[in-house]
């Protein structure tokens, strides 16, 4: 798999705004950014209200995902181009989520909304009107999704990669520095996890580093690429970014995202936790 198979440049995006069969979607947790201006023709996907079950802590089910994409006007044959804020965290999460439900024709805009803005490209407040489709999803592909029991069993066995900031990893902070500090019951990290903050996979402008740079980064961190890997963060979106780097850019085959992440693990009773830097 090459970079062009999974990423498009902002220039490609601008050149293909009107290409039939290409659907742009902005994904964010807080959709006020979209409402204030988005790429022309892009539909919005609300990470919290549309991709998460409103009651249980889980995703919308297959029927829910089908209804969502049908309402957004996304067809099974469409190439979906995702982008968003926060260096594409939520767009990477959505990318992983689309793969989870079997939609293979999906790519990210490299650098996301930030790169688009830093380029000085045009944004519009006009919302597109797309025809309703009859989207059909597949059953979840659990080869890319890890659950808690598998994570506990992976300690000292598989690669565990904690992509939060060093201060969250060591237990000094419970949440990223732009948020009030509230989260799991306990701070720290899963024993045997290596800490490679998601940000090391990205350039300052939000684009992903090259596959060679990424391979060197994770190699130096001690990731054994012959073993399966599970990535986690606090709620699973930063680790989607790293999952993308490991699986889609470097090309590792067995990489899962643990979407329960620290907000689940750090509140489990009885599981081992380590604190301190490594």
């Amino acid at each position, binding site marked *: 798999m090459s970079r062009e198979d999974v990423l498009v440049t902002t220039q490609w995006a601008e050149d293909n705004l009107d290409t039939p069969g290409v659907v742009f979607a902005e994904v*964010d*947790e*807080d959709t*006020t*950014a979209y409402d204030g201006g988005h790429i022309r023709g892009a539909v919005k996907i609300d*990470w*919290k209200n549309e991709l998460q079950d409103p009651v249980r802590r889980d995703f919308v089910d297959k029927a829910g995902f089908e209804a969502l994409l049908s309402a957004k006007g996304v067809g099974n044959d469409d190439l979906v181009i995702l982008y968003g*804020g*926060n*260096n594409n*965290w*939520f767009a990477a999460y959505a990318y992983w989520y689309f793969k989870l439900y079997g939609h293979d024709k999906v790519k990210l805009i490299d650098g996301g909304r*930030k790169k688009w*803005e*830093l*380029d*000085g490209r045009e944004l519009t407040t006009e919302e597109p009107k797309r025809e309703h489709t009859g989207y059909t999803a597949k059953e979840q592909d659990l080869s890319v999704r890890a659950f808690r029991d598998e994570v506990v069993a992976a300690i000292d066995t598989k690669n565990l990669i904690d992509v939060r*900031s*060093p*201060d969250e990893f060591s237990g*000094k*902070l419970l*949440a*990223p*520095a*732009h*948020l*009030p*500090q*509230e989260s799991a019951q306990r701070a720290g990290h899963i024993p045997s996890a290596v800490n490679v*903050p998601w*940000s*090391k996979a990205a350039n*300052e*402008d939000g684009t992903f580093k090259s596959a060679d740079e990424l391979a060197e980064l994770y190699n130096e961190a001690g990731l054994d690429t012959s073993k399966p890997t599970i990535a986690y*963060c*606090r*709620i699973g*979106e*930063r680790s989607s970014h790293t999952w993308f780097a490991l699986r889609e850019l470097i090309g590792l085959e067995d990489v899962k995202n643990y979407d329960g992440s620290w*907000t689940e693990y750090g509140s489990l009773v009885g599981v081992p936790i380590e604190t301190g830097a490594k």
Partner: protein
Amino acid sequence: MTDGCGAPAQTAIAADADTGGQVVVAGKVTGGEGPLGGAYVRLLNADGEFTGEVQASPDGDFRFYAAPGTWTVRALHRSGNGQASVSAEGPGLHQVTIAVA
């Protein structure tokens, strides 16, 4: 109340604001003609490592919840970049202005 990781909308914070015991690094991004809105502001620790990023408000305001230490705040904007350092020795509000050129 915040169970996500997305940056909340950035708002100005009063100089005497109660930070609830947290170490807050906040301030304004300015350009050639005063406050500059919409810049991407990155918080880097004393080793230059990325710690967080927010997008400044239309009035140029930004805010981070940090830990005690010396921090660099770096702003990226389509009109240019800029950075400044701030020493946050303990809980409270630590203000800093970033000039972008």
